[in-house]
């Protein structure tokens, strides 16, 4: 039986991928981002598009399928879930998550599956 998503939002860029959670509050957190991380943030501006080139997926608390972040995520071909209210708090204690940008779901990934 499929597990209940820990976070849901609007599907904005297709695909399903798993990776380590990386909460990004501001540019000051950029240095911590590693290739393959799932970026979880409030919103994005032009500087954040550099992160999209190395991220596995992105989850944003604001925006919609039409937002600039969604458009850029689709260009990079990475799954994106947007308008995921409370995502930063909900995902803070998870190490690895799976982002389903086709359906707008975020699932926990158990450590044995990593």
């Amino acid at each position, binding site marked *: 039986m499929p597990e209940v998503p820990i976070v849901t939002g609007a599907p904005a860029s297709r695909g399903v991928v798993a990776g380590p959670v990386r909460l990004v509050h501001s540019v000051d957190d950029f240095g911590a981002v590693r290739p393959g991380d799932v970026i979880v943030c409030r919103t994005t*501006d*032009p500087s954040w*598009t550099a992160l999209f080139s190395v991220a596995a997926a992105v989850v944003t608390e604001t925006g919609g399928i039409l937002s600039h972040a969604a458009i850029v995520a689709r260009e990079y071909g990475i799954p994106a879930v947007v308008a995921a209210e409370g995502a930063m708090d909900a995902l803070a204690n998870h190490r690895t998550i799976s982002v389903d940008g086709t359906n707008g779901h975020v699932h926990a990934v158990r450590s044995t599956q990593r």
Partner: protein
Amino acid sequence: MTHVSRSSLLALHAIRLGGFVDTQAVADRYGMPVALAESLVRDFRESGWISRFRFGADAGWSLTESGRVENERLLADELSQCGAKALMEDVYRMFLPLNARLVQACTAWQLTILPDGSMQDNDHGDAQRDRPILAELESLAHELIPLTIQLTERLARFSGYDTRFAAAVSLAADNPEMVTGTKNDSAHRVWFELHEDLIATLGIDRALPSGP
């Protein structure tokens, strides 16, 4: 008369707008000598306003949180000096409905949303499907001209958005990358930059629910 911004404001703002740029791009954004950009970048780094990041093969400068505060302080001071705040707010109000159309057109360029809500990529194999999207982008290019003129009459640093956007749109029929591409001066990239410029200049918080 239009106001010409100081080099230090322009160089810091070039990093804000570019998001993640090298020193050459800082110089190029407002046509500044490279030596001047290099010296300003050094000062910014010493002040803690910018930080160097590396993502994959790319390295560049981004504003730190304190750099962002400084950038917005300089922009707000400039705006009040020129008495251009009311005009800027008017232009931003006119920009928002155009922005809503732009993101709609860019999304339609990238994908079709099927009746069941699922997304299907647009492979640009159907010229008939793409034609109305290009027509909408051309219309937006025309509508951007008076806005850019109004902005530039007060602040010279706003010049070029209309011509850069129109140039991207004119190439889009032959090169689909020119609409939403991330590597080139695509229509979406130019527009996103203008949106960021207006938001920065007016000190608006992007995280607040005010549209895309």
